[in-house]
Protein backbone atom coordinates (compact mmCIF):
# COMPACT_ATOMS: atom_id res chain seq x y z
CA UNK A 1 0.00 0.00 0.00
CA UNK A 2 1.45 3.31 -0.97
CA UNK A 3 1.67 6.14 1.45
CA UNK A 4 -0.74 8.63 0.09
CA UNK A 5 0.63 12.05 -0.51
CA UNK A 6 -2.06 14.64 -0.49
CA UNK A 7 -1.76 16.94 -3.40
CA UNK A 8 -3.53 20.20 -2.87
CA UNK A 9 -6.11 20.60 -5.53
CA UNK A 10 -6.11 24.26 -6.16
CA UNK A 11 -8.35 25.90 -8.65
CA UNK A 12 -5.51 27.66 -10.40
CA UNK A 13 -6.21 28.39 -14.01
CA UNK A 14 -3.66 27.32 -16.52
CA UNK A 15 -3.17 29.49 -19.56
CA UNK A 16 -5.28 27.27 -21.75
CA UNK A 17 -8.23 27.94 -23.98
CA UNK A 18 -10.69 28.58 -21.16
CA UNK A 19 -9.71 32.19 -20.71
CA UNK A 20 -11.12 35.12 -22.66
CA UNK A 21 -9.67 35.46 -26.03
CA UNK A 22 -8.65 38.74 -27.54
CA UNK A 23 -10.73 38.34 -30.63
CA UNK A 24 -14.30 39.33 -29.68
CA UNK A 25 -15.68 37.08 -32.37
CA UNK A 26 -13.85 34.16 -30.87
CA UNK A 27 -15.50 34.92 -27.57
CA UNK A 28 -18.88 34.87 -29.19
CA UNK A 29 -17.97 31.60 -30.80
CA UNK A 30 -16.93 30.14 -27.45
CA UNK A 31 -20.20 31.27 -25.95
CA UNK A 32 -22.08 29.61 -28.72
CA UNK A 33 -20.17 26.39 -28.33
CA UNK A 34 -20.80 26.31 -24.64
CA UNK A 35 -24.46 27.07 -25.14
CA UNK A 36 -24.72 24.26 -27.63
CA UNK A 37 -22.89 21.91 -25.30
CA UNK A 38 -25.21 22.75 -22.44
CA UNK A 39 -28.31 22.11 -24.50
CA UNK A 40 -27.40 18.68 -25.73
CA UNK A 41 -26.20 16.37 -23.06
CA UNK A 42 -26.11 12.64 -23.06
CA UNK A 43 -26.22 11.04 -19.69
CA UNK A 44 -24.61 7.68 -19.25
CA UNK A 45 -27.26 5.33 -18.02
CA UNK A 46 -25.36 3.55 -15.34
CA UNK A 47 -27.13 2.81 -12.10
CA UNK A 48 -24.42 2.70 -9.50
CA UNK A 49 -26.52 2.77 -6.38
CA UNK A 50 -29.98 3.23 -5.01
CA UNK A 51 -30.37 6.81 -6.24
CA UNK A 52 -30.82 5.32 -9.67
CA UNK A 53 -34.41 4.50 -8.82
CA UNK A 54 -35.31 8.17 -9.20
CA UNK A 55 -33.76 8.37 -12.65
CA UNK A 56 -36.47 6.55 -14.59
CA UNK A 57 -39.07 9.06 -13.32
CA UNK A 58 -36.68 11.89 -14.15
CA UNK A 59 -36.19 10.57 -17.64
CA UNK A 60 -39.77 9.70 -18.47
CA UNK A 61 -42.93 11.65 -19.02
CA UNK A 62 -43.56 13.12 -15.64
CA UNK A 63 -40.34 14.98 -15.00
CA UNK A 64 -39.00 14.62 -18.49
CA UNK A 65 -35.40 15.63 -18.66
CA UNK A 66 -35.58 15.61 -22.40
CA UNK A 67 -37.07 19.05 -22.03
CA UNK A 68 -33.59 20.09 -21.10
CA UNK A 69 -32.02 18.27 -24.00
CA UNK A 70 -30.74 15.48 -21.81
CA UNK A 71 -31.12 11.88 -22.83
CA UNK A 72 -29.81 8.62 -21.50
CA UNK A 73 -27.01 7.05 -23.44
CA UNK A 74 -25.89 3.47 -23.10
CA UNK A 75 -22.29 3.81 -24.17
CA UNK A 76 -19.69 5.79 -22.26
CA UNK A 77 -17.93 6.81 -25.44
CA UNK A 78 -20.81 8.96 -26.53
CA UNK A 79 -21.91 10.15 -23.10
CA UNK A 80 -21.28 13.57 -21.60
CA UNK A 81 -22.55 13.09 -18.08
CA UNK A 82 -21.60 10.40 -15.62
CA UNK A 83 -24.26 10.27 -12.98
CA UNK A 84 -23.02 8.58 -9.87
CA UNK A 85 -26.26 7.72 -8.20
CA UNK A 86 -25.41 7.03 -4.65
CA UNK A 87 -22.98 4.71 -2.98
CA UNK A 88 -20.31 3.08 -5.07
CA UNK A 89 -19.03 -0.22 -3.92
CA UNK A 90 -15.36 -0.81 -4.43
CA UNK A 91 -16.16 -3.21 -7.19
CA UNK A 92 -18.34 -0.65 -8.93
CA UNK A 93 -15.83 2.10 -8.36
CA UNK A 94 -13.33 0.33 -10.55
CA UNK A 95 -15.90 0.20 -13.34
CA UNK A 96 -16.81 3.81 -12.85
CA UNK A 97 -13.21 4.87 -13.18
CA UNK A 98 -12.84 2.80 -16.31
CA UNK A 99 -16.03 4.30 -17.63
CA UNK A 100 -15.04 7.81 -16.73
CA UNK A 101 -11.71 7.52 -18.43
CA UNK A 102 -13.35 6.19 -21.55
CA UNK A 103 -15.78 9.05 -21.83
CA UNK A 104 -14.80 11.71 -24.28
CA UNK A 105 -14.07 15.20 -23.05
CA UNK A 106 -15.67 17.43 -22.06
CA UNK A 107 -17.35 15.20 -19.53
CA UNK A 108 -19.22 15.99 -16.38
CA UNK A 109 -19.65 14.03 -13.21
CA UNK A 110 -22.67 14.47 -11.00
CA UNK A 111 -22.58 13.08 -7.49
CA UNK A 112 -26.04 12.27 -6.26
CA UNK A 113 -27.09 11.35 -2.71
CA UNK A 114 -25.29 11.59 0.59
CA UNK A 115 -23.12 8.59 -0.13
CA UNK A 116 -21.02 10.24 -2.80
CA UNK A 117 -20.06 13.03 -0.43
CA UNK A 118 -19.09 11.46 2.85
CA UNK A 119 -20.09 7.83 2.74
CA UNK A 120 -23.75 8.38 3.55
CA UNK A 121 -25.38 5.72 5.61
CA UNK A 122 -22.70 3.24 4.55
CA UNK A 123 -19.92 5.17 6.19
CA UNK A 124 -19.09 2.09 8.27
CA UNK A 125 -19.14 -0.30 5.37
CA UNK A 126 -15.99 -2.01 4.22
CA UNK A 127 -17.47 -2.33 0.76
CA UNK A 128 -18.26 1.19 -0.36
CA UNK A 129 -16.14 4.20 -1.26
CA UNK A 130 -16.73 7.25 0.89
CA UNK A 131 -15.71 10.36 -1.03
CA UNK A 132 -16.24 10.25 -4.74
CA UNK A 133 -14.06 13.27 -5.36
CA UNK A 134 -11.06 11.37 -4.11
CA UNK A 135 -11.23 9.20 -7.21
CA UNK A 136 -12.52 11.52 -9.89
CA UNK A 137 -13.38 15.19 -10.11
CA UNK A 138 -17.03 16.01 -9.55
CA UNK A 139 -18.84 18.90 -11.20
CA UNK A 140 -21.93 19.08 -9.16
CA UNK A 141 -23.51 17.42 -6.16
CA UNK A 142 -27.19 16.92 -5.54
CA UNK A 143 -28.15 16.41 -1.92
CA UNK A 144 -30.70 13.90 -0.78
CA UNK A 145 -31.05 10.29 0.17
CA UNK A 146 -32.09 9.96 -2.53
CA UNK A 147 -32.85 13.27 -4.21
CA UNK A 148 -36.28 13.51 -5.76
CA UNK A 149 -36.58 13.81 -9.55
CA UNK A 150 -37.19 17.52 -9.13
CA UNK A 151 -33.90 17.84 -7.30
CA UNK A 152 -32.17 15.83 -9.99
CA UNK A 153 -33.66 18.14 -12.63
CA UNK A 154 -32.58 21.16 -10.59
CA UNK A 155 -29.08 19.75 -10.41
CA UNK A 156 -28.98 19.15 -14.12
CA UNK A 157 -30.15 22.67 -14.82
CA UNK A 158 -27.47 23.95 -12.54
CA UNK A 159 -24.95 21.90 -14.45
CA UNK A 160 -26.21 23.29 -17.74
CA UNK A 161 -25.85 26.78 -16.42
CA UNK A 162 -22.33 26.03 -15.26
CA UNK A 163 -21.43 24.61 -18.64
CA UNK A 164 -22.78 27.70 -20.32
CA UNK A 165 -20.70 29.88 -18.06
CA UNK A 166 -17.66 27.74 -18.54
CA UNK A 167 -17.53 26.79 -14.86
CA UNK A 168 -17.99 23.07 -15.35
CA UNK A 169 -14.50 22.01 -16.29
CA UNK A 170 -13.62 19.53 -13.62
CA UNK A 171 -12.63 17.03 -16.29
CA UNK A 172 -9.50 19.09 -16.84
CA UNK A 173 -8.68 18.65 -13.21
CA UNK A 174 -8.40 14.92 -13.70
CA UNK A 175 -5.59 15.45 -16.17
CA UNK A 176 -3.91 18.20 -14.23
CA UNK A 177 -3.96 16.33 -10.97
CA UNK A 178 -3.96 12.80 -12.21
CA UNK A 179 -1.41 11.79 -9.62
CA UNK A 180 -3.74 12.80 -6.82
CA UNK A 181 -6.64 10.78 -8.13
CA UNK A 182 -4.46 7.84 -9.02
CA UNK A 183 -3.05 7.91 -5.51
CA UNK A 184 -6.45 7.43 -3.97
CA UNK A 185 -7.25 4.72 -6.47
CA UNK A 186 -4.03 2.92 -5.63
CA UNK A 187 -4.66 3.25 -1.93
CA UNK A 188 -7.94 1.43 -2.33
CA UNK A 189 -7.22 -1.00 -5.15
CA UNK A 190 -3.60 -1.75 -4.53
CA UNK A 191 -0.54 -0.40 -6.19
CA UNK A 192 -0.83 -2.61 -9.22
CA UNK A 193 -4.02 -0.89 -10.24
CA UNK A 194 -4.13 0.19 -13.85
CA UNK A 195 -6.71 1.10 -16.42
CA UNK A 196 -6.57 0.67 -20.18
CA UNK A 197 -6.69 4.41 -20.76
CA UNK A 198 -3.39 6.26 -20.99
CA UNK A 199 -4.45 9.30 -19.06
CA UNK A 200 -1.03 10.92 -19.13
CA UNK A 201 -0.87 10.79 -22.89
CA UNK A 202 -4.34 12.21 -23.06
CA UNK A 203 -3.35 15.01 -20.76
CA UNK A 204 -0.54 15.89 -23.15
CA UNK A 205 -2.92 15.63 -26.05
CA UNK A 206 -5.39 18.07 -24.51
CA UNK A 207 -2.62 20.40 -23.44
CA UNK A 208 -3.59 19.84 -19.85
CA UNK A 209 -0.37 18.27 -18.73
CA UNK A 210 0.64 20.13 -15.62
CA UNK A 211 3.13 19.88 -12.79
CA UNK A 212 0.77 17.70 -10.76
CA UNK A 213 -0.11 15.31 -13.52
CA UNK A 214 2.84 13.15 -12.66
CA UNK A 215 4.03 12.19 -9.23
CA UNK A 216 4.89 9.28 -7.02
CA UNK A 217 1.74 7.45 -7.89
CA UNK A 218 2.14 7.67 -11.63
CA UNK A 219 5.68 6.46 -11.12
CA UNK A 220 4.28 3.48 -9.33
CA UNK A 221 1.84 2.98 -12.14
CA UNK A 222 4.62 2.90 -14.70
CA UNK A 223 6.50 0.43 -12.60
CA UNK A 224 3.62 -2.00 -12.54
CA UNK A 225 2.09 -1.33 -15.90
CA UNK A 226 1.66 -4.25 -18.18
CA UNK A 227 1.16 -3.42 -21.80
CA UNK A 228 -2.36 -4.07 -22.89
CA UNK A 229 -2.66 -7.00 -25.15
CA UNK A 230 -5.31 -7.51 -27.72
CA UNK A 231 -7.44 -10.54 -27.12
CA UNK A 232 -6.24 -13.40 -29.12
CA UNK A 233 -8.85 -14.50 -31.59
CA UNK A 234 -8.60 -18.00 -32.83
CA UNK A 235 -10.54 -18.19 -36.01
CA UNK A 236 -11.22 -21.80 -36.69
CA UNK A 237 -14.38 -21.70 -38.72
CA UNK A 238 -13.42 -23.82 -41.74
CA UNK A 239 -15.07 -21.61 -44.38
CA UNK A 240 -13.35 -18.53 -43.08
CA UNK A 241 -10.04 -20.29 -42.87
CA UNK A 242 -10.47 -21.51 -46.39
CA UNK A 243 -11.28 -18.05 -47.66
CA UNK A 244 -8.19 -16.73 -46.02
Amino acid sequence: MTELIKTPRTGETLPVKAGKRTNPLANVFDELVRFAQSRSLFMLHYCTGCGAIELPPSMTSRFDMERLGIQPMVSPRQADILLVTGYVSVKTLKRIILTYEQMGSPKYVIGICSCTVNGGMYWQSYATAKKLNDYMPVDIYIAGCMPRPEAVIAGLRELMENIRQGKADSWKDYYRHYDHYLGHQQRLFGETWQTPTDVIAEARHYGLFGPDTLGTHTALLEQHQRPLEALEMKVDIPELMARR
Partner: protein
Amino acid sequence: MRPENYEAQRQPPSHEYELNIGPNHPGIEGNYAFKLRLHGDRVLEGKADAGYLHRGFEKLMEGRLWIQNLAITPRICVPDPVPMEVSYCLAVEELCGLEIPERAQWLRVLQLELSRIAAHLFTFGGHAATTGMYSPMFWGIADRDLVLDLFEELTGGRVYHIYNIPGGVRRDAPDGFLDRVRSTLDYLDSRLPDYDNLLFTNQVFVHRAKGVGTMSREQALEWGVTGPNLRATGLEFDVRRDDPYLVYDDLDFDIPTEEAGDAWARTLVRRKELVQSIRIARQVIAALPSIAGPIRCPIPNPLAWNVPAGSVYTRVESSKGELAWYVVSNGGERPYRTHVRGPSQMHAVQVLEKLSVGCRLEDVAQTMFSLDACPPEVDR
Protein backbone atom coordinates in the same frame (compact mmCIF):
# COMPACT_ATOMS: atom_id res chain seq x y z
CA MET B 1 -4.48 -5.14 -10.94
CA ARG B 2 -7.28 -4.72 -13.36
CA PRO B 3 -10.84 -5.52 -12.47
CA GLU B 4 -10.87 -9.23 -12.61
CA ASN B 5 -13.54 -9.73 -15.13
CA TYR B 6 -12.37 -6.99 -17.35
CA GLU B 7 -10.69 -9.51 -19.59
CA ALA B 8 -12.36 -12.61 -20.82
CA GLN B 9 -11.26 -15.45 -18.66
CA ARG B 10 -11.33 -18.07 -21.32
CA GLN B 11 -10.08 -18.09 -24.83
CA PRO B 12 -13.00 -19.50 -26.76
CA PRO B 13 -13.09 -20.95 -30.24
CA SER B 14 -14.24 -18.26 -32.56
CA HIS B 15 -17.79 -19.39 -33.09
CA GLU B 16 -18.13 -19.35 -29.39
CA TYR B 17 -17.47 -16.11 -27.64
CA GLU B 18 -17.98 -14.47 -24.35
CA LEU B 19 -20.03 -11.41 -23.79
CA ASN B 20 -20.19 -9.35 -20.68
CA ILE B 21 -23.60 -7.91 -20.13
CA GLY B 22 -23.34 -5.30 -17.50
CA PRO B 23 -22.84 -4.08 -14.95
CA ASN B 24 -24.24 -1.28 -17.07
CA HIS B 25 -27.12 -2.71 -19.04
CA PRO B 26 -30.85 -2.32 -19.42
CA GLY B 27 -31.96 -5.79 -18.45
CA ILE B 28 -32.10 -5.45 -14.76
CA GLU B 29 -33.12 -3.00 -12.10
CA GLY B 30 -29.68 -2.23 -10.89
CA ASN B 31 -26.02 -2.73 -11.14
CA TYR B 32 -25.40 -6.32 -12.07
CA ALA B 33 -23.32 -8.19 -14.57
CA PHE B 34 -24.07 -11.31 -16.49
CA LYS B 35 -21.39 -13.09 -18.44
CA LEU B 36 -22.52 -15.08 -21.38
CA ARG B 37 -20.85 -17.66 -23.54
CA LEU B 38 -22.54 -17.60 -26.85
CA HIS B 39 -22.59 -19.63 -29.98
CA GLY B 40 -23.81 -17.22 -32.57
CA ASP B 41 -26.72 -15.64 -30.78
CA ARG B 42 -27.52 -18.72 -28.73
CA VAL B 43 -26.52 -18.68 -25.13
CA LEU B 44 -24.44 -21.67 -24.17
CA GLU B 45 -23.75 -20.63 -20.64
CA GLY B 46 -24.54 -17.73 -18.40
CA LYS B 47 -22.72 -16.71 -15.28
CA ALA B 48 -24.02 -14.11 -12.91
CA ASP B 49 -21.54 -11.65 -11.46
CA ALA B 50 -22.83 -9.79 -8.46
CA GLY B 51 -21.36 -7.60 -5.79
CA TYR B 52 -21.58 -4.25 -7.53
CA LEU B 53 -24.16 -3.16 -5.00
CA HIS B 54 -22.65 -4.92 -2.04
CA ARG B 55 -22.66 -2.75 1.07
CA GLY B 56 -22.37 -5.36 3.76
CA PHE B 57 -25.83 -4.64 5.14
CA GLU B 58 -25.89 -7.54 7.47
CA LYS B 59 -22.57 -6.48 8.92
CA LEU B 60 -23.71 -2.89 9.28
CA MET B 61 -26.88 -3.96 11.02
CA GLU B 62 -24.94 -5.86 13.64
CA GLY B 63 -23.31 -2.57 14.58
CA ARG B 64 -26.43 -0.48 14.93
CA LEU B 65 -29.26 -0.29 17.40
CA TRP B 66 -32.42 -2.15 16.63
CA ILE B 67 -34.19 1.01 15.67
CA GLN B 68 -31.33 2.50 13.72
CA ASN B 69 -31.54 -0.42 11.36
CA LEU B 70 -34.92 0.77 10.18
CA ALA B 71 -33.20 3.22 7.90
CA ILE B 72 -31.11 0.49 6.32
CA THR B 73 -33.78 -2.11 5.68
CA PRO B 74 -35.68 -0.46 2.81
CA ARG B 75 -32.44 -0.09 0.88
CA ILE B 76 -32.17 -3.81 0.38
CA CYS B 77 -34.66 -3.72 -2.46
CA VAL B 78 -35.06 -0.26 -3.88
CA PRO B 79 -38.07 -0.73 -6.17
CA ASP B 80 -40.12 -2.45 -3.49
CA PRO B 81 -38.88 -1.28 -0.10
CA VAL B 82 -41.93 -1.69 2.12
CA PRO B 83 -41.81 -5.47 2.53
CA MET B 84 -38.25 -5.10 3.80
CA GLU B 85 -39.28 -2.66 6.48
CA VAL B 86 -42.33 -4.61 7.47
CA SER B 87 -40.66 -7.98 7.66
CA TYR B 88 -37.80 -6.61 9.74
CA CYS B 89 -40.31 -5.00 12.06
CA LEU B 90 -42.28 -8.23 12.25
CA ALA B 91 -39.12 -10.04 13.27
CA VAL B 92 -38.30 -7.57 16.04
CA GLU B 93 -41.89 -7.58 17.20
CA GLU B 94 -41.95 -11.33 17.37
CA LEU B 95 -38.74 -11.41 19.38
CA CYS B 96 -40.06 -8.79 21.77
CA GLY B 97 -43.57 -10.20 21.91
CA LEU B 98 -45.06 -6.85 20.90
CA GLU B 99 -48.72 -6.71 19.99
CA ILE B 100 -49.16 -4.47 16.99
CA PRO B 101 -52.29 -2.33 17.17
CA GLU B 102 -54.84 -3.22 14.57
CA ARG B 103 -54.80 0.15 12.89
CA ALA B 104 -51.08 -0.15 12.33
CA GLN B 105 -51.56 -3.57 10.81
CA TRP B 106 -54.06 -2.25 8.30
CA LEU B 107 -51.83 0.70 7.48
CA ARG B 108 -49.01 -1.73 6.87
CA VAL B 109 -51.12 -3.80 4.52
CA LEU B 110 -52.05 -0.65 2.64
CA GLN B 111 -48.40 0.25 2.21
CA LEU B 112 -47.44 -3.26 1.21
CA GLU B 113 -50.06 -3.38 -1.50
CA LEU B 114 -49.31 0.11 -2.77
CA SER B 115 -45.68 -0.84 -2.89
CA ARG B 116 -46.51 -3.98 -4.81
CA ILE B 117 -48.53 -1.95 -7.32
CA ALA B 118 -45.64 0.46 -7.77
CA ALA B 119 -43.13 -2.35 -8.17
CA HIS B 120 -45.26 -4.22 -10.68
CA LEU B 121 -45.85 -1.11 -12.76
CA PHE B 122 -42.10 -0.63 -12.82
CA THR B 123 -41.51 -4.22 -13.84
CA PHE B 124 -44.04 -4.20 -16.71
CA GLY B 125 -42.46 -1.11 -18.06
CA GLY B 126 -39.02 -2.58 -17.82
CA HIS B 127 -40.09 -5.84 -19.37
CA ALA B 128 -41.76 -4.04 -22.26
CA ALA B 129 -38.66 -1.91 -22.76
CA THR B 130 -36.47 -5.00 -23.06
CA THR B 131 -38.58 -5.99 -26.05
CA GLY B 132 -38.14 -2.57 -27.56
CA MET B 133 -41.51 -1.16 -26.49
CA TYR B 134 -40.92 2.02 -24.63
CA SER B 135 -44.42 3.40 -24.29
CA PRO B 136 -45.49 0.96 -21.57
CA MET B 137 -42.34 1.88 -19.70
CA PHE B 138 -43.17 5.57 -19.88
CA TRP B 139 -46.69 4.85 -18.76
CA GLY B 140 -45.71 2.46 -16.05
CA ILE B 141 -43.22 4.83 -14.55
CA ALA B 142 -45.54 7.81 -14.73
CA ASP B 143 -48.36 5.85 -13.11
CA ARG B 144 -46.02 4.46 -10.50
CA ASP B 145 -45.17 8.02 -9.63
CA LEU B 146 -48.76 8.59 -8.57
CA VAL B 147 -48.35 5.83 -6.04
CA LEU B 148 -45.12 7.43 -4.89
CA ASP B 149 -47.06 10.65 -4.38
CA LEU B 150 -49.31 8.74 -2.01
CA PHE B 151 -46.29 7.40 -0.19
CA GLU B 152 -44.85 10.87 0.06
CA GLU B 153 -48.00 12.07 1.69
CA LEU B 154 -48.29 9.15 4.08
CA THR B 155 -44.66 8.65 5.00
CA GLY B 156 -42.82 11.83 4.11
CA GLY B 157 -40.59 10.10 1.60
CA ARG B 158 -41.10 9.04 -1.98
CA VAL B 159 -38.98 5.94 -2.13
CA TYR B 160 -37.47 5.25 1.27
CA HIS B 161 -40.36 5.50 3.62
CA ILE B 162 -38.88 4.39 6.95
CA TYR B 163 -42.46 4.56 8.07
CA ASN B 164 -42.75 1.29 9.89
CA ILE B 165 -41.25 0.85 13.27
CA PRO B 166 -41.28 -2.14 15.55
CA GLY B 167 -44.61 -1.86 17.28
CA GLY B 168 -46.53 -0.15 14.52
CA VAL B 169 -46.10 2.81 12.22
CA ARG B 170 -44.63 6.22 12.89
CA ARG B 171 -47.49 8.53 11.97
CA ASP B 172 -51.16 8.20 11.32
CA ALA B 173 -52.57 8.71 7.84
CA PRO B 174 -53.24 12.41 7.20
CA ASP B 175 -56.76 13.74 6.74
CA GLY B 176 -58.26 12.96 3.39
CA PHE B 177 -55.47 10.56 2.56
CA LEU B 178 -57.77 7.62 2.05
CA ASP B 179 -59.83 9.57 -0.45
CA ARG B 180 -56.74 10.30 -2.45
CA VAL B 181 -55.73 6.65 -2.32
CA ARG B 182 -59.17 5.76 -3.54
CA SER B 183 -59.05 8.12 -6.49
CA THR B 184 -55.56 6.97 -7.44
CA LEU B 185 -56.69 3.37 -7.28
CA ASP B 186 -59.69 4.23 -9.44
CA TYR B 187 -57.40 5.90 -11.90
CA LEU B 188 -55.00 2.95 -12.00
CA ASP B 189 -57.94 0.64 -12.41
CA SER B 190 -59.18 2.66 -15.34
CA ARG B 191 -55.74 2.51 -16.90
CA LEU B 192 -55.66 -1.28 -17.04
CA PRO B 193 -57.48 -1.53 -20.39
CA ASP B 194 -54.93 0.87 -21.84
CA TYR B 195 -52.11 -1.35 -20.64
CA ASP B 196 -53.94 -4.36 -22.04
CA ASN B 197 -54.26 -2.72 -25.42
CA LEU B 198 -50.71 -1.58 -25.50
CA LEU B 199 -49.02 -4.58 -23.99
CA PHE B 200 -50.93 -7.53 -22.74
CA THR B 201 -53.08 -8.14 -25.78
CA ASN B 202 -50.49 -6.75 -28.12
CA GLN B 203 -49.57 -9.76 -30.24
CA VAL B 204 -46.10 -8.41 -30.90
CA PHE B 205 -45.35 -8.49 -27.23
CA VAL B 206 -47.20 -11.72 -26.63
CA HIS B 207 -45.19 -13.46 -29.28
CA ARG B 208 -41.94 -11.99 -28.10
CA ALA B 209 -42.60 -13.08 -24.55
CA LYS B 210 -44.10 -16.48 -25.06
CA GLY B 211 -41.78 -19.37 -24.73
CA VAL B 212 -38.96 -17.28 -23.37
CA GLY B 213 -37.30 -18.51 -20.22
CA THR B 214 -39.70 -21.36 -19.69
CA MET B 215 -39.55 -23.46 -16.61
CA SER B 216 -41.77 -26.22 -15.41
CA ARG B 217 -43.35 -26.33 -12.00
CA GLU B 218 -40.99 -29.10 -10.96
CA GLN B 219 -38.02 -27.05 -12.04
CA ALA B 220 -39.35 -24.02 -10.26
CA LEU B 221 -39.73 -25.94 -7.03
CA GLU B 222 -36.34 -27.51 -7.48
CA TRP B 223 -34.66 -24.16 -8.00
CA GLY B 224 -36.32 -22.41 -5.11
CA VAL B 225 -38.42 -20.10 -7.25
CA THR B 226 -41.03 -18.11 -5.36
CA GLY B 227 -43.58 -15.39 -5.87
CA PRO B 228 -45.12 -14.52 -9.22
CA ASN B 229 -42.46 -16.57 -10.97
CA LEU B 230 -43.62 -19.67 -9.12
CA ARG B 231 -47.28 -18.88 -9.63
CA ALA B 232 -46.62 -18.56 -13.34
CA THR B 233 -45.88 -22.30 -13.33
CA GLY B 234 -49.30 -23.06 -11.93
CA LEU B 235 -48.62 -23.48 -8.23
CA GLU B 236 -51.15 -21.51 -6.26
CA PHE B 237 -49.03 -20.36 -3.40
CA ASP B 238 -48.74 -17.02 -1.75
CA VAL B 239 -47.17 -16.30 1.62
CA ARG B 240 -49.92 -13.80 2.30
CA ARG B 241 -52.50 -16.57 2.26
CA ASP B 242 -50.56 -19.67 3.19
CA ASP B 243 -48.29 -18.29 5.90
CA PRO B 244 -50.34 -15.24 6.80
CA TYR B 245 -49.03 -12.20 8.61
CA LEU B 246 -50.65 -8.93 9.65
CA VAL B 247 -54.34 -8.98 8.73
CA TYR B 248 -54.13 -10.83 5.43
CA ASP B 249 -56.31 -13.52 6.98
CA ASP B 250 -59.20 -11.06 7.08
CA LEU B 251 -58.82 -9.93 3.51
CA ASP B 252 -60.49 -11.26 0.45
CA PHE B 253 -58.22 -11.79 -2.52
CA ASP B 254 -57.39 -14.37 -5.15
CA ILE B 255 -54.08 -15.84 -6.07
CA PRO B 256 -53.72 -15.61 -9.83
CA THR B 257 -51.77 -18.37 -11.52
CA GLU B 258 -50.63 -19.25 -15.00
CA GLU B 259 -49.47 -22.58 -16.32
CA ALA B 260 -46.94 -21.80 -18.99
CA GLY B 261 -44.01 -20.80 -16.77
CA ASP B 262 -42.50 -18.52 -19.42
CA ALA B 263 -41.80 -14.80 -19.49
CA TRP B 264 -45.27 -14.11 -20.77
CA ALA B 265 -46.92 -16.06 -17.99
CA ARG B 266 -44.84 -14.32 -15.36
CA THR B 267 -45.76 -10.89 -16.63
CA LEU B 268 -49.37 -11.90 -16.88
CA VAL B 269 -49.40 -13.07 -13.28
CA ARG B 270 -48.09 -9.64 -12.27
CA ARG B 271 -50.78 -8.01 -14.36
CA LYS B 272 -53.38 -10.02 -12.50
CA GLU B 273 -51.79 -9.37 -9.16
CA LEU B 274 -52.14 -5.70 -9.83
CA VAL B 275 -55.87 -6.20 -9.84
CA GLN B 276 -55.72 -8.15 -6.61
CA SER B 277 -53.58 -5.51 -4.95
CA ILE B 278 -56.01 -2.80 -5.95
CA ARG B 279 -58.74 -5.00 -4.52
CA ILE B 280 -56.92 -5.43 -1.22
CA ALA B 281 -56.07 -1.76 -1.00
CA ARG B 282 -59.73 -0.90 -1.50
CA GLN B 283 -60.69 -3.23 1.31
CA VAL B 284 -58.19 -1.49 3.55
CA ILE B 285 -59.55 1.92 2.66
CA ALA B 286 -63.03 0.73 3.44
CA ALA B 287 -61.99 -0.79 6.75
CA LEU B 288 -59.55 1.80 8.06
CA PRO B 289 -61.98 4.55 9.10
CA SER B 290 -63.75 2.18 11.45
CA ILE B 291 -60.53 0.96 13.06
CA ALA B 292 -59.63 3.49 15.67
CA GLY B 293 -56.95 3.20 18.24
CA PRO B 294 -53.25 3.77 18.46
CA ILE B 295 -50.88 3.38 15.55
CA ARG B 296 -48.10 2.02 17.67
CA CYS B 297 -47.85 0.02 20.82
CA PRO B 298 -45.56 1.39 23.50
CA ILE B 299 -41.98 0.48 22.78
CA PRO B 300 -38.90 0.88 24.94
CA ASN B 301 -36.67 3.87 24.53
CA PRO B 302 -34.80 3.21 21.29
CA LEU B 303 -31.55 4.09 23.01
CA ALA B 304 -32.11 1.50 25.70
CA TRP B 305 -33.74 -1.37 23.98
CA ASN B 306 -32.60 -4.87 24.62
CA VAL B 307 -34.44 -7.32 22.48
CA PRO B 308 -34.86 -10.67 24.26
CA ALA B 309 -32.50 -13.36 23.11
CA GLY B 310 -33.82 -15.68 20.48
CA SER B 311 -34.08 -16.18 16.80
CA VAL B 312 -36.93 -15.66 14.43
CA TYR B 313 -37.60 -16.24 10.77
CA THR B 314 -40.26 -13.98 9.31
CA ARG B 315 -41.48 -14.24 5.79
CA VAL B 316 -43.55 -11.90 3.72
CA GLU B 317 -44.60 -11.90 0.10
CA SER B 318 -42.86 -9.09 -1.71
CA SER B 319 -43.64 -8.19 -5.28
CA LYS B 320 -40.79 -10.45 -6.29
CA GLY B 321 -41.47 -13.45 -4.13
CA GLU B 322 -40.70 -14.82 -0.74
CA LEU B 323 -38.79 -12.34 1.37
CA ALA B 324 -37.55 -13.46 4.73
CA TRP B 325 -35.48 -12.20 7.61
CA TYR B 326 -33.64 -14.41 9.97
CA VAL B 327 -32.95 -12.27 12.98
CA VAL B 328 -30.92 -13.44 15.96
CA SER B 329 -30.73 -11.51 19.19
CA ASN B 330 -28.40 -12.33 22.03
CA GLY B 331 -30.44 -10.11 24.31
CA GLY B 332 -28.49 -7.02 23.38
CA GLU B 333 -29.16 -3.58 22.03
CA ARG B 334 -28.14 -4.58 18.55
CA PRO B 335 -29.04 -7.55 16.42
CA TYR B 336 -26.51 -10.31 16.83
CA ARG B 337 -27.13 -11.40 13.30
CA THR B 338 -29.57 -10.53 10.60
CA HIS B 339 -29.85 -12.48 7.42
CA VAL B 340 -32.11 -11.42 4.63
CA ARG B 341 -33.39 -13.91 2.15
CA GLY B 342 -34.46 -12.02 -0.94
CA PRO B 343 -36.31 -13.82 -3.70
CA SER B 344 -33.83 -12.49 -6.23
CA GLN B 345 -31.06 -14.45 -4.59
CA MET B 346 -32.55 -17.40 -6.42
CA HIS B 347 -34.06 -15.64 -9.42
CA ALA B 348 -31.11 -13.51 -10.40
CA VAL B 349 -28.46 -16.15 -9.94
CA GLN B 350 -29.24 -19.81 -10.31
CA VAL B 351 -32.57 -19.48 -12.07
CA LEU B 352 -31.31 -16.88 -14.49
CA GLU B 353 -28.18 -18.87 -15.21
CA LYS B 354 -30.29 -21.92 -15.99
CA LEU B 355 -33.03 -20.19 -17.94
CA SER B 356 -30.63 -18.24 -20.11
CA VAL B 357 -29.10 -21.39 -21.52
CA GLY B 358 -30.49 -21.89 -24.96
CA CYS B 359 -31.95 -18.43 -25.00
CA ARG B 360 -31.22 -16.06 -27.81
CA LEU B 361 -29.08 -13.11 -26.98
CA GLU B 362 -31.91 -10.64 -27.54
CA ASP B 363 -34.08 -12.51 -25.06
CA VAL B 364 -31.61 -12.50 -22.22
CA ALA B 365 -32.57 -9.07 -21.02
CA GLN B 366 -36.22 -10.01 -21.28
CA THR B 367 -35.64 -13.16 -19.25
CA MET B 368 -33.97 -11.14 -16.57
CA PHE B 369 -36.73 -8.61 -16.36
CA SER B 370 -39.46 -11.19 -16.51
CA LEU B 371 -37.92 -12.80 -13.44
CA ASP B 372 -38.12 -9.39 -11.79
CA ALA B 373 -34.66 -9.85 -10.41
CA CYS B 374 -33.48 -7.18 -8.04
CA PRO B 375 -29.68 -7.09 -7.69
CA PRO B 376 -29.46 -5.27 -4.35
CA GLU B 377 -31.30 -8.21 -2.81
CA VAL B 378 -28.52 -10.47 -4.02
CA ASP B 379 -25.69 -8.18 -3.03
CA ARG B 380 -27.07 -6.75 0.20
